[in-house]
């Protein structure tokens, strides 16, 4: 069974040739399907760049990136977009919901660009995240936790194999953090691969594998058991 994510000798540089900045250097990473991976590291360590490459939002300067057994390194912009829609669901720290669309329509947006919008399916997805009664609310009428749950419903609606979550609890209070992490745990239990960027060691503890990035290199990688949901540390 191929790895869900396989990066070999990946490097990424930004900027003009004379003043290039290396965001990633010689990164080798294999993530088995069904892994919940926590990416940690200080600002500027290359977390975002790594997530962009895994999310097919960017391409490496060197090395190869394979997602679900498919080498996407030489994919065109159009191919990457299609591949992204098929394989990857995104959860953002700042939610990125379309302000003039209701919760239901925000979920249907992902369906629309994937294939066909199905209102009943989108409604079921919102019910799954506990927002069945908030379908017709605009993002501005929802709390931060509710918005993040809409974001999760949107990420899951097309049944992606990989979920990329960038600081999914960064803007949430503890109660909502617990709900969101519970939903991610559900997704993990359903067999999805989750790549989660976090600065929070307690949140990272829920992952089955943790990676520490520093100066564009993987400094530390270890495998751990996730803590049971409901015992997210209260004191941090």
């Amino acid at each position, binding site marked *: 069974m191929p790895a869900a994510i396989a990066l070999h000798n990946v490097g990424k540089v930004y900027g003009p040739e004379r003043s290039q900045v290396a965001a990633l250097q010689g990164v080798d990473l294999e993530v088995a399907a069904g892994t919940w991976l926590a990416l940690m590291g200080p600002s500027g360590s290359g977390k*975002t760049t790594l*997530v*962009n490459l895994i*999310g097919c*939002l*960017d391409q490496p300067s060197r090395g190869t990136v394979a997602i679900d057994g498919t080498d996407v390194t030489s994919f065109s*912009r*159009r191919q990457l*977009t*299609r591949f*992204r*829609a*098929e394989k990857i669901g*995104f959860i*953002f*720290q*700042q939610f*990125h919901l*379309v*302000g*003039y*669309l209701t919760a239901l*329509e925000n979920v*249907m*947006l*992902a*369906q*629309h*660009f*994937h294939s066909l*919008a199905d209102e009943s399916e989108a409604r079921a997805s919102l019910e799954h995240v506990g927002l069945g009664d908030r379908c017709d609310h*605009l993002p501005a009428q929802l709390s931060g936790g509710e918005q993040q749950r809409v974001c999760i419903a*949107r990420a899951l609606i*097309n049944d992606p194999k990989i979920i*990329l979550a*960038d600081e999914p609890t960064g803007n949430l209070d503890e109660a909502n953090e617990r709900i969101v992490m519970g939903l991610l745990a559900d997704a993990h239990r359903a067999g999805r691969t989750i790549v989660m960027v976090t600065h929070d060691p307690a949140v990272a503890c829920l992952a089955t594998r943790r990676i520490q990035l520093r100066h564009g290199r993987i400094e530390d990688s270890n495998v751990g058991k996730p803590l049971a949901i409901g015992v997210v540390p209260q004191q941090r």
Partner: protein
Amino acid sequence: MFVRILKQSFHRQRRRKSLAALAVIAGMAVASAMLTLRVNLGDDLSAELRHIGANIVISPAADSLPITLDGVDLRPAGSGALLDERDLPAVKTIFWRNNIIALAPILDTQVVLNGRRVEVEGAYLEALRRLNPAWSVAGAWPAGDSDGVLAGRHLGAPIGSRISLAGRPAVVTGIVATGGAEDGEIIAPLSLVQTIAGVPGKYREALVSAVTKPEDAFARRSHASMTMAEMDRWMCSPYAVTIAQQLQEALPGSVATVVRPVADSEGVILSQLRLLLWFITLLALAASGLAISGAMTASVLERRGEIALMKAVGAQDSAIGALFFSEAALLGLGGGAVGYLLGEWLATAIAYHVLGHSIAWKPALAPLMLVLAALVALAGSLHPLRQAIRVEPAVALRGEA
């Protein structure tokens, strides 16, 4: 879903979209008004310009050879051969008869009035009046076959006074002031002057005012170099020379000459006016395009996060382009439709208040305006569309959108 996104985009951004639509409506209204005026007032403007006098003169072919200086016919008015008044009805048979606003046969003679020689000009007075609407007449124009006359203001004959014209009694019904030779002349019905001069049924020349098309290079082409089709086209174009030729053919023994300075001035004025209307139309369309471009650019900048998100969840560049172009097209078409209606009203108001004409609505312009609006929307949204397509979805993940 696409329609829902579009609808919500307009519904939730009512204020921004309304402002953009207003700008489009204003531009399209001006463009529509100018086009309507351009289409409607072609003939009306030409007719309006006919107030500056005759543009064709018919004179006897047997008359003296033309003496022209700078395009002006300098032949003496009272000498030479005469034309037959009985032939005049033939003018009603020419192809461009409806373009003839006035035709005034003229016969002049001299009489002695209060011991001095005075020129008496006989004419169809109604036609003369139509030819010279700028003349100032105190009192009233005489009736066609009456013994009433107009006296030039320098003659000192008061209104109602009775005068003798070579033994024929006449009554001064009005005093004419033109600033020209007429100020020292008597203007009388043609029949009266024919009797005085002893040439019943004759006239010396006819002044014609006709609505014409400004002369272009085709009008000036030699007939010898024209094909049959070109000759037909030439005959079917209301150039002053074409109408003059038809008049000449209809009136035996006559020569019809275009009064060049008048015809040329009309042509220049009409051409410049039409050019001006085109320019204003183009400027208004450009303003509409800029309004759409500005609204769409602002929309793209404001919605960078939304665009990045759509791309992140699988929207291709074409889908983003279709979404924003549809918004621009809706703005353009909506603005175009309202702008057309407003423009028609504006054109009617301009025509009525400025030119004193009423003009008919031109429904045929509506589809043209909608097509123009769509093209303007397309042109105006090209740059913002490029900006939208260039948005990198990675910025959404970074939270910098």
